[in-house]
């Protein structure tokens, strides 16, 4: 099959970096960042998620562009749900 097959080394490297990122996010929770705690935690989690998606799930090697559109659409719709709902809760105390 024409499919690209990553080398075993790539998988091990990705796995190791995922473990380090887990340690990083665990450590970061001890820092005192107030509201930035969640921002940092979500940032690290998004890095881990993209790593898993690109290499482990092989999104990097997928030839069909359509699958990229499907993934981005899914994340964008989640963003719609979260952001438009939050507009209600954030502005509820204004009026």
């Amino acid at each position: 099959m024409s499919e690209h097959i990553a080398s075993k080394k790539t998988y091990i490297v990705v796995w190791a970096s995922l473990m380090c990122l887990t340690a990083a996010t665990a450590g970061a929770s001890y820092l005192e960042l107030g509201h930035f705690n969640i921002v940092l935690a979500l940032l690290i989690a998004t890095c881990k998620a993209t790593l898993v998606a690109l290499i482990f799930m092989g999104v990097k090697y997928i030839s069909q562009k359509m699958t990229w559109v499907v993934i981005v659409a899914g994340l964008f719709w989640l963003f719609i749900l979260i952001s438009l709902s939050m507009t209600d809760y954030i502005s509820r105390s204004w009026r």
Partner: protein
Amino acid sequence: MSDSSPTLAAHQPGLQHHFATMEQQTDASVMGMWVFLVTEIMFFGGMFVGYMIYRYMYYGPWLEGSQHMDFWWGTINTAVLLCSSLTMALGVRASQLGQRRMLVTFLLITILFGLGFLGIKSIEYHGHWVDGQFPGANFRFSGPNPAQVELFFSFYWAMTGFHALHVLIGIGLVTYVVYRSWKGAYGPDYHNPVENVGLYWHFVDIVWIYLYPLLYLISHKHLSG
């Protein structure tokens, strides 16, 4: 889009009648799997929205609730799931290369990691249950605003419960694939089911990657109250 060669290739194993070529079928099933994963994103998304909104409204109790989580079990569980993702990825790679024995061993290790995850999860659940942290009649909490902390635990049980259910389904799928690959059904030219189960497993791992910091690591600031 679909360059269907008119002369049907030799009837490869697993090629279904209505697909022209094997490549068209694989593309279709990978895309179908990703569309299914998008529905799962929106399914968990509903709970994440509820979590975000309540965390914005009740930050204090959320902090309080999150400090009742077992930090170490949570971290170990994340590591366990990441390892299971590694072995699943290596398993998929083995199926692409046609190494049947490697494929079966990696998938079995993945199942072990999955069961390990569920084991740790049940230890945590038992701990919370005994401490009276299951919402409802026997919910006990001594600290300030117990109502909102009960709300946090409702989310904890709902989100990790659905996630554990998905891990269970994942283990079932992997066992089915192990059985089929033990019978030698998958080789370099037909290993799509293994790939799809791998995608599902990695997705369940990604959900936990987000659940772990949101539920366990809100912050370790020592609460003044």
